């Protein structure tokens, strides 16, 4: 299914300034999203996942956020260099985004049908009636009766709202869908419904997807490739098999160790000690070293690059340095 690179992010650096503090949210992230492929961005709160997605779409709030470096290519063009006008043609049209909290992602003052029609009318030459008709079809597509398009967001439940958000995101048949924790706010049975629907629509339309989540279960189910983010850096990236079966980075190991397993009786969890570093004063060397059980002196000082341990499996850990024999 996967084809050539659709979006490629190179050395993205994003900072937030708040008062005197500079928050280093994203520190040199590079990845490619190929056509028809789903890439999972996995990490904990504050790792910089959402910032990456918003950078791609060019909707970071500036101030306080500032893109300090890097390039984001789509269709051979660096999107960070595009004018606002050109970017507007991309947003909602070629790239669409689904947000974490369906409760607040819809404007409470407009009926949902109009909110879907809005994105269609922005990007397609279509009459008002045509857009309205299409928005009804889109609602049907996500399993909501079309006539409910005349209702306001507060009349829908959380799961239903997220379906509306998905309909809105898919309205212009985008090539890329950025899904930012799309089911985190939902109950588990509703999450199952929504995930199933998203995967079905993605497969029907061949949409590429960037799936942002903290839930390794969702990654296992939805993604083809995975990038694990820690403190604004990719610490491990590879195919789903690489990450799940050949876990290489101590942080990824820690994440798996923190999860109670449903299938086997877990006697005791093996959590990662300590906590996330403050993104405004990140440790030198490997950013994970203060919490890492394998940390050596070198880890505290050396800047660690991503090593390719196998074709397509990248790990940011000195223990995987091919020059070092262990």
């Amino acid at each position, binding site marked *: 299914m996967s084809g050539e690179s659709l979006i490629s992010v190179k050395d993205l650096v994003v900072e937030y300034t708040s008062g005197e503090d500079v928050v280093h949210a994203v520190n040199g992230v590079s990845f490619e999203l190929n056509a028809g492929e789903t890439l999972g961005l996995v990490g904990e709160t504050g790792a910089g996942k959402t910032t990456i997605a918003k950078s791609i779409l060019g909707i970071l709030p500036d101030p306080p956020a500032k893109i300090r470096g890097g390039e984001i290519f789509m269709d051979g063009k660096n999107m960070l260099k595009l004018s*606002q006008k050109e970017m507007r043609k991309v947003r*909602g049209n070629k790239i*669409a985004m689904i947000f974490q909290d369906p409760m607040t*992602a819809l*404007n409470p*003052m407009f009926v949902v049908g109009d909110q879907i029609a809005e994105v269609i009318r922005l990007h397609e030459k279509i009459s008002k009636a045509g857009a309205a008709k299409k928005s009804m079809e889109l609602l049907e597509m996500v399993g909501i009766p079309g006539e409910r398009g005349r209702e306001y967001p507060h009349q829908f439940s959380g799961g239903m709202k997220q379906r509306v958000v998905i309909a*809105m995101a898919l309205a212009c048949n985008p090539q890329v869908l950025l899904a930012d924790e799309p089911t985190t706010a939902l109950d588990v049975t509703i999450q199952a419904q929504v995930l199933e629907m998203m995967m079905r629509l993605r497969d029907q339309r061949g949409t590429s997807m960037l799936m942002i989540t903290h839930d390794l279960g969702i990654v296992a189910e939805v993604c083809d490739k995975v990038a694990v983010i820690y403190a604004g850096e990719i610490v491990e990236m590879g195919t789903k098999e690489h990450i799940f079966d050949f876990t290489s980075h101590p942080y990824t190991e820690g994440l798996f160790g923190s999860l109670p397993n449903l299938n086997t009786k877990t006697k005791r969890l093996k959590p990662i000690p300590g906590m996330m570093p403050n993104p405004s004063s990140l440790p030198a060397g490997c950013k994970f070293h203060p919490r890492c059980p394998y940390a050596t002196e070198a880890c505290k000082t050396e800047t660690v690059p991503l090593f390719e341990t196998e074709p397509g499996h990248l790990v940011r850990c000195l223990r995987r340095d091919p020059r070092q024999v262990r």
Partner: protein
Amino acid sequence: MLRYVLKRILMFIPIILGVTIFVFTLLYFTPGDPAQVILGSDATEEELEACREELGLNDSYLERFARYCSDVFLHGNLGESYINGRSISEEVASRMPKTFTVALVSVILAVCIGMPLGIISATNQYTWKDNTAIVLALLGVSMPGFWVGLMLSLVFALKLGLLPPSGWGGIEYLILPCVSIALSGAGSIARQTRSSMLEVIRQDYITTARAKGQTERKVIYVHALRNALIPIVTQVGTMLGIQLSGAIVAESIFSIPGIGTYMVSGIKNRDYPVVQGSVLVVAIIFSIVMLLVDVAYAFVDPRIKAQYAAPKKRTAKEA
């Protein structure tokens, strides 16, 4: 929706009754003898007593209150002035429109100046535009309206002679009094608009609108403003009350024959039925405006209906 409106109207009745009790009681306890006011200082005790009897001043509080209520609500009669014996209802009816015009025009003016200022300020946060707007709004809310009135009349009427310094007539008579009380209103609307716009701009649905590829202009004026409007609408409603009071003072500066000058003369002459009647009428008009605002709410915000029907957290906890 109809139920909502009806409920609001029903809530309106006890409020009016309460206001009447309040105004009546307040003036009931006012020291001083009305008979003395009417007859002057050289009346004899018999004459005074006869006058008190005639006015029903010797009756109990409840009797007098009942009579006042029946006069006001059943006959639309606010009594007569102690000084000249003229019907207060007629006087108020002829003066009220002027006061209301001044108040309304100044509210409109305040909205027209304040809202754009607030929007510019919020959409250009931390820039020189924002800072200028903040300072202007601060000055606006800090200047006492009656003093602005005096200064405006000094400059534009007395020195430059561009506008009439006093009286009532065409639009030119409205400008100075309205501007003088609109400035503080404009300041507070600008401040409210700014803070509520800043609040709304942070919301997720604004990000959603941007993610759709919507133009910044429409994001602000369609998506954000509509939501920010709700607290502003309330404020505009309350402001009409403030401007009504402001108009009372402005009238005395610009000699407008409105309810304000009437009330002030009533205060000066200890003509209490006049004060009582004027306060009551202004309060009733203000309550009607607040009622309209509440109803307007339901039209501006689709969630109000739901809030009205939805279980409130508190009531749920008590059950």
